[in-house]
């Protein structure tokens, strides 16, 4: 019993400490993001890494998700004679939910783990200490470009996921299942509002912040050599994915 209480206590202490350190890191990153000199080259490099290099994976995920959504919703809706609603079902699901969440999870797996590994390696090989020693603030130099890249690129990637998802849904709905293309497009335009798209983009912005911050936190405070770096990468994916799913539910509950 005592041992269980101790482990609960230790877990709570670690959790509060991590939350505190992450909050301080976020606040510092926010301040340094607006403190000159601003190194645009570092920011663009990270945007290329988070955004451009994730394009293939989000196009693949988005298109197959749109296609499978069209198949499944067709199967369900035809029972009510409402096959014409396949288009809006796919588009709304992609825009409000699946686009941002799947983009978040996929990019967390690809870019979040890589960020944590890179910063973790820099930590255990004293490269972060070297930055300090050279009077270069590592939060400004390492964390700010990554967090900005996450916040800026996740919405753009989500737009790509949404778009290819809708195209995938259209291809399956119209070409494979024989829904009239005019009805498919018309119904989609009738039902999908700008607000639906903005809701998804707002979510993706938050997911970008979560993914990059969690990855930077885990990498920045990594310890224990190669094993510690591996742990940082795993934690960044697990912690990032869980936080994306929880925050998604919370944001959805406010926007339904």
């Amino acid at each position, binding site marked *: 019993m005592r041992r269980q209480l101790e482990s609960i206590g230790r877990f709570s202490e670690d959790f509060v400490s991590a939350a505190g350190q992450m909050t301080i890191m976020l606040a510092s990153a926010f301040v340094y993001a607006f403190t000159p000199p601003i190194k645009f080259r570092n920011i663009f490099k990270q945007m290329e890494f988070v955004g451009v290099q994730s394009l293939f994976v989000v196009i693949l995920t988005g298109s197959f998700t749109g296609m499978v959504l069209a198949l499944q919703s067709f199967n369900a809706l035809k029972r009510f004679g409402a096959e014409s609603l396949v288009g809006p079902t796919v588009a709304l699901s992609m825009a409000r939910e699946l686009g941002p969440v799947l983009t978040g999870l996929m990019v967390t797996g690809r870019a979040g783990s890589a960020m944590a590994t890179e910063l973790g390696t820099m930590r255990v090989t*004293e490269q972060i200490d070297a930055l300090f020693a*050279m009077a270069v*603030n590592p939060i400004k130099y390492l964390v700010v470009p990554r967090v900005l890249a996450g916040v800026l690129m996740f919405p753009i990637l989500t737009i790509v996921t949404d778009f290819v998802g809708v195209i995938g849904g259209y291809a399956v709905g119209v070409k494979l299942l024989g829904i009239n293309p005019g009805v498919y497009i018309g119904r989609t335009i009738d039902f999908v509002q700008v607000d639906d798209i903005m809701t998804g983009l707002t979510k993706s912005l938050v997911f970008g912040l979560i993914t990059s911050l969690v990855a930077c936190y885990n990498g920045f405070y990594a310890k224990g050599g190669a094993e510690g770096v591996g742990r940082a990468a795993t934690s960044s994916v697990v912690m990032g994915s869980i936080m994306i799913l929880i925050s998604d539910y919370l944001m959805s509950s406010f926007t339904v």
Partner: protein
Amino acid sequence: MIKIVNLRKSFGEKKVLDGVNLDIERGKITVIIGRSGEGKSVLIKHIIGLLKPDEGAIFLEDQDLTSLRDRDFNEVRKRFGMLFQGAALFDSMTVADNVGFPLKEHTDLHDEDIRKIVTEKLNRVGLVNVEEMMPSDLSGGMKKRVGLARAIVMDPEIVLFDEPTTGLDPIMSDSIADLVLDTQKALKTTYILITHDIPFTYKIADKIAMLHEGRIIEEGSVEEMKANPNPILRQFLEGRAEGPIKVF
């Protein structure tokens, strides 16, 4: 130039620094020796502000470094250079970008001027035509040299060395010792080194201080230390397993 007063630092229950007092003279080479795990790296990290002490002070001239806020400490850090144990080169950058990094971050120099300074500093540490190499392509000794070139690229007043010969063969260690002496003589910089390499220490030190159980137990010139009868110092300098320092 630097005065360390009653510096104390613990990690959890473990007391690492337990009242360190030490004066470091301007333009001299001070070597801090001691067994592995005695807190030498911790001490050097306090000097450059990577760690904050629990108690005590470090004065650079009349300024207490331990009371500075991070932002103010950054200005002081520009007066320092540091060579890390594993050189801590940025592995995503070329040698030239590594050495030129502090200049790029803290000066308005053009790329060509930075390039000239980088080549000059690399030549000073005995490296030619390595600018475009990546750190992963360098041997341990070359990494230390590049690390030293980066540490002196801003012509700092003080350079800190964390175990500069660890992992090097005796010949390479001796060449690093020559390099330390040459660069220090040329630049008249204050050098602070931590090491447990005794032949290296004898070759370069103006002053030796021994850290043991969190305190400086003896200090003096090479000759004074060689003549010092303190059994702990003797055991360490002579590298004997038997003596007052317990191995296990």
